[in-house]
């Protein structure tokens, strides 16, 4: 039985299998040439890596929760987010529906 943790998706075999094409594409973004190729023609780049329609829509939406739902792993997704200049506070704010300022305040509050 899977252990349910509120607001958390364990990246297990099921997710890893589902997200393989998406994560493989994101892994390619370790190379600056590949990042440039993605920016030049996003559609073609996603097609080259065989993304599913769900993954393609999630990439297009830049929505991290949708990308996770499509099997994305956050360490690989961070490489995609980096292309758009988003850091982990930006994606944290996006996923929690907060402003970046409020998200940073929430982090600081955890230390008090």
């Amino acid at each position, binding site marked *: 039985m899977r252990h349910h943790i509120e*607001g958390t998706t364990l990246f297990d075999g099921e997710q890893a299998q589902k997200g393989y094409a998406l994560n493989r594409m994101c892994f390619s973004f370790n190379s600056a040439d590949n990042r440039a190729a993605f920016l030049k023609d996003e559609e073609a780049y996603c097609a080259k890596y065989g993304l599913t329609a769900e993954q393609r829509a999630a990439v297009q939406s830049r929505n991290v929760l949708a990308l996770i739902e499509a099997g994305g792993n956050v360490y690989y997704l961070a490489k995609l987010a980096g292309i758009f200049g988003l850091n982990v506070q930006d994606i944290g704010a996006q996923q929690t529906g907060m402003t970046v300022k409020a998200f*940073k305040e*929430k982090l600081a509050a*955890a230390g008090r």
Partner: protein
Amino acid sequence: MARIIGGIGTTHVPSIGKAIAEKKQNDPYWEPFFSGFNAVHKWLAQEKPDIAVVFSNDHGLNFFLDKLPTFAVGAANEYRNEDEGWGIPVSRAAKGDAALSWHLIEGLVNDGFDITMCQEMLVDHAVTIPLNLLWPKGDWPAIVPVTINTVQHPLPSLARCLELGRAVGCAVMGYPEDVKVLVVGTGGLSHQLDGRRAGFINKDFDTLCMDQLSADPEALTRYTIPTLVELAGAQGVEFLNWMAMRGALTGTVSELHRNYHIPISNTAAATLLLANRPRAQRKAA
């Protein structure tokens, strides 16, 4: 004979690499974190380890999900860093010590750890940032990187990582060269980057983990991986690297220093310095 002088646990958040490159160590945001290393630098200057065994997790630089070992040991004389795709500066290479690597590999397999052996291994920020934090002048010792899967579940248990560390500790003690070895566990502590629970931090649990690490690491093995995710956050499971570091300290362990600061990026940043005194030497004294 080789001996393990101590262990250090340290956070490896990527943005630390940027802060170092931009010389922000004294900025109000960063100072409480960087100043926590002063005591560690002093200790390292006294103890002068020759080699560091570094337990860390790869974040998709060297390993991809096509082939993902649970435990992998580097067996090279040099470990390069490369572009990780998210804008942190590429670090210079770290020197390796292939002779000690192969000795550890022999010992680990002999002890029942069916590890992956890597004559080529890129090391990511989980190795290079701790090296920069511990030896900011760049006088890094040679390293033996040991990579633990904290990315794709199922992950190895806390108990298994503690045992892995013990096997490393035993193997080091059987190494005939007269070298001083430091063990390092990187990452953590509590944090979560993904999902609606992003930004989760748990100060109480981190404090408990640090307290138990020197006193009674066995007590922490009661937590299953899903419980660890729940209590430390999805990426807080990097604490597995700290458990392995602790396991390698097979002598009498005492905490010399700790620093804990929230937040660095999305993470509860922690630094812990543990001394390891050989038991036999203590009896003789």
